């Protein structure tokens, strides 16, 4: 078989992997939906979760698509497509491909023509991310047991513990926008975007409370995110000049 980064064979593999991912997602979606109904949660509540999550996911998903496009110049479409759909994230796949490329001394600006170069990159990208898929089933029991122990000892502290996990994550991603501020006004752009998103969310929250606009809850995060992204597109040329 002649090698080509966009061969039908590679596309068939990609389609098989995508079908597997979709099957797993649908399996868990249906089980959770049925369990929600058994627990007495209304169909409206469950559908609201599905709908608002769908809307919210579109913008970040497009940025992932951009990752597929970026890597496609070097690796073709199928491999980045697979990697971005299973376990992967752009923050990992790009450095992994770069590391593999530099290990074999090829440039990422040119499409791979040698199959052994391609398989080297594929193996590095796969093995580098493997712990993320192997560890959850191994550690699940211990982590769940630990959480249960904390909660049963002191319920109030258990709640604070849980909130601390969320806040710890959020504070890291909020703090990171300050990383570039010493570069001058350009470095403030992520901070401005974050503040605009927070402000839009705040306004949505006020509208929901003051005018009882319950429907807005479904879209609030999507509106604040898209609003902030539009702001980023408008403000960047003004600041960069």
């Amino acid at each position: 078989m002649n090698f080509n980064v966009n061969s039908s064979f590679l596309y068939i593999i990609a389609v098989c992997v995508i079908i597997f991912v979709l099957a797993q997602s649908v399996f868990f979606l249906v089980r959770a939906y049925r369990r929600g109904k058994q627990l007495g949660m209304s169909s409206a509540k469950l559908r609201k979760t599905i709908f608002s999550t769908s809307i919210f996911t579109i913008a970040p998903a497009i940025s992932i698509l951009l990752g597929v496009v970026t890597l496609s110049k070097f690796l073709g479409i199928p491999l980045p497509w697979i990697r971005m759909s299973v376990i992967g994230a752009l923050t990992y796949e790009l450095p992994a491909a770069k590391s593999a490329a530099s290990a074999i001394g090829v440039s990422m600006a040119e499409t791979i023509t040698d199959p052994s170069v391609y398989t080297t990159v594929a193996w590095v990208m796969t093995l580098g991310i493997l712990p993320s898929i192997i560890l959850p089933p191994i550690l699940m029991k211990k982590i769940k047991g630990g959480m249960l122990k904390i909660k049963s000892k002191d319920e109030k502290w258990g709640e604070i513990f849980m909130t601390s996990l969320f806040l710890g994550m959020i504070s890291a991603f909020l703090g990171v926008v300050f990383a570039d501020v010493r570069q001058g006004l350009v470095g403030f752009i992520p901070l401005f975007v974050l503040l605009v998103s927070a402000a839009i969310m705040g306004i949505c929250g006020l509208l929901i409370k003051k005018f009882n606009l319950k429907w807005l809850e479904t879209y609030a995060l999507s509106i604040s995110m898209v609003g902030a992204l539009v702001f980023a597109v408008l403000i960047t040329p003004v600041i960069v000049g």
Partner: protein
Amino acid sequence: MNDYLKKTDMYGKIWIWTAALVVIMVPVAVCVAYNAWPPITAVLKGLLGVAPMFWTVGVIEVITYTPMLGTGGTYLAFVTGNLTSIKAPAALNAMENLGIKADSEEGEVISTLAIATSSIVTTLVIVIGVCLLTLISPILNSPTLQPAFNNILPALFGGLGVVYISKNWKLAIVPLIFMIVLFLLVPSLADAVGVLVPVGIIVTLAAGRTMYKKGWI
């Protein structure tokens, strides 16, 4: 553990181990089809550049996200990936919207529902994108839109953060100040923000424990 959670754990394990096999079979199939096994030294050299960092992040992510996402959500999110940019925020936002706690069974259901939905939507967006690539590639690569793609995380965490911080502002003060000072002093840490999530959690827990003992929260 009730029957639903036990079965979720069992099914989750079956799916995730199958997924591990599927992931490994991809490069194996390519190697066999093209009779092109890579030199082991090249793979090891390439791995050396990413494994120390990403294996550590992998361990950290499993420990930190599992309690937040629940059993079903964890098994699904770690297979479908894009944890910090989509799956975790989707789960948090869905639970917050309904006022449900993550450690309740309702939380387990809603988190799984949100993660499954976002996995399906992400996969479909990429499928559509790949099918229409020649059409949309110029749009995705247009310099006008680059600032939007560069700022996905601030746009996402600004909205999510304001909800959580306003509800838990006392608990949020210390980790926020800590992270802001840390990134101001060492900007290069921005590349390793994933590693700093557990640091943020430890700081929040330490501050929270002190405030709890003193009766401030």
